[in-house]
């Protein structure tokens, strides 16, 4: 199976109303614990896991994920170690790597794609690689059957959304609010319209992320028609503060999974 096919199957075979996609950061708080966190996500109802690679200047991230990346790097996290984490987690559940463009560019798109295949990863999300800058990445990933998952935002105009939707692989990462990652209270205003607009413009599943931090929000996002929900900062906060991070993150993930039944 190619990476794209694995992602497709994960959405098809989801147990809840929407596929549950927890975000974790590789090497946070350390390499071994982050693997345990990923496996715990898989055991507690994750359909896919998004593995973030720590980066020095994460422009799309709010304070919680930024701080986690800073700490991971301070503790010696590397791209190679992060790919080892992704590999270990990929053995339990389909994974998609989230990585800022400079780390990929630094290795080269082709070499990076080969590393992802080697690690058993199914796709790649580059939060700072918009459509216009993506052709080389798309070609390199397509050649390996990997999904280059694009993001769309509430600010994306319809014509552009159609273009991005047409070139989406795996799923369409739909940002629920204009802003960086981070927990937000209350339902995202206009989430129904956001999801509907995304679904009308692509043939791949629509997954919503940024700001979903409670099971209630996850549930209403599924009600809005999202085929996947991505939980980020809420879980990183748990990993950062709990005495036993993998158990604690697993419990929170289970709460989200239950809300999506």
């Amino acid at each position, binding site marked *: 199976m190619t990476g794209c096919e694995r992602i497709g199957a994960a959405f098809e075979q989801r147990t809840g109303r929407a596929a549950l996609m927890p975000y974790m950061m590789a090497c946070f708080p350390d390499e071994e614990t982050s693997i345990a966190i990923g496996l715990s996500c898989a055991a507690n109802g994750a359909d896919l896991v998004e593995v973030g690679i720590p*980066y*020095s*200047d994460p*422009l*799309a991230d*709010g304070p919680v994920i*930024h*701080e986690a990346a*800073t700490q991971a*790097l301070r503790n010696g996290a*590397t*791209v190679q170690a992060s790919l080892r984490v992704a590999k270990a987690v990929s053995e339990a559940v389909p994974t998609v790597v989230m990585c*800022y*463009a*400079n*780390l*990929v*560019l*630094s*290795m080269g798109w082709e070499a990076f794609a080969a590393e992802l295949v080697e690690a058993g990863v199914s796709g790649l999300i580059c*939060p*700072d*690689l*918009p*459509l*216009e*800058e993506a052709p080389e990445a798309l070609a390199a990933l397509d050649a390996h059957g990997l999904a280059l998952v*694009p*993001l*769309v*935002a*509430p*600010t*994306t*105009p319809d014509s*552009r959304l159609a273009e*991005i939707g047409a070139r989406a692989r795996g799923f369409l990462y739909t*940002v629920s609010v*204009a*802003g*960086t990652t981070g927990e937000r209270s209350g339902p995202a205003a206009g989430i129904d319209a956001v999801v509907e607009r995304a679904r009308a413009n692509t043939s791949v599943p629509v997954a919503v992320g940024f700001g979903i931090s409670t099971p209630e929000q996850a549930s209403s996002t599924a009600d809005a028609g999202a085929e996947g929900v991505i939980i980020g900062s809420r879980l990183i906060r748990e990993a950062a503060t709990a005495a036993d991070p993998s158990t604690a993150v697993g419990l929170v993930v289970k709460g989200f999974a239950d809300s999506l039944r």
Partner: protein
Amino acid sequence: MTEVEHRFGPFGGRYVPETLMPALVELEEAWVAARNDPAYEAELGILLRDFAGRPTPLYRAERLSELTGGELWLKREDLLHTGAHKINNALGQALLAKRMGKRRIIAETGAGQHGVATAVACARLGLECVVYMGAEDIRRQQPNVERMRLLGATVAPVESGAKTLKEAVSEAIRDWVASVETSHYIIGSAVGPAPFPAIVRDLQRVISDEARAQMLDRTGELPKRVIACVGGGSNAIGGFAAFLEDAEVELIGVEAAGEGLDSGRHGAPLTAGGRPGILHGSLSAIMQNDEGQIAEAHSVSAGLDYPGSGPQHAWLRETGRATYVAVTDADALAAFRRVSELEGIIPALETAHAFAWAMANPGERDLLILSGRGDKDLAEVIARTS
């Protein structure tokens, strides 16, 4: 009018979160419309003349010329309102924001000069202003912090990383991602995603348009070399722009060598010749490790304490049209005192780097962009040199 460049050779581009893409498209359209609109040009022209103090003088530095045995001409951007070239860009972009109907302005600042210039422009035009500034820079550029507050701006301290310019730019961009529909980001140097490097260059180009005409008027000749300090590269690109076609004029950008290029503690990505990388939305010469993690810069001067560089500079270096060199903290501090004593001009620490290089490498007829004045640096220089 030519179109707005997105790339300079391979450098530049738009590596930003999708949320910002429509705003960059809108900004580019607004910019093209503005610069083709005589009303915009007229309004900016009056502000630059009567409010900011343009044109700035071209001044022959007599005693420094005597010392070096050549002719040293200074383009006096230090005499502008707020004390640096940054006001050229801040006024131009604030007017543009107003045309776009954006009432809230975001800016970042290192030395505080761009923050003050933006705060002044916002006060003058009645716009709300938030300036992100690293906590370390708030400490070392205190007078400018007081100035911004007095002007009604909110100064938002940034505590991440080295608490300097790089982090301030990142926080400003994060704010913009969340507020893009109502806010405009006035980036302070010729960096960032397209169309910013081209807009900032076009707004700073007034430096070399004036200086070129002034040199011809005063000496009947062009300078042999144009010398400017480079942080992100806005005063340098503004100082180079009108001379780009004059192949015989050498263009020299002076970066911060900090504690020495070999120490790794510097702010000289162009001189040190690092691999191209992405920082703050564009591909350019940057300081990074083997894996592509961005390195921390170091310079005694807050305005040069930046691991990136404007994409057009990366291209000018690659094509050989401009040359980039670097000056250490110690040499810049010495030049700061020397220029003050010999010329009665206290330069900004940033500009002191350009002076240090020009004094150590005298030329026959040099034009040096005196990008700003050093009042903001007094406390820091005295603390470091006494």
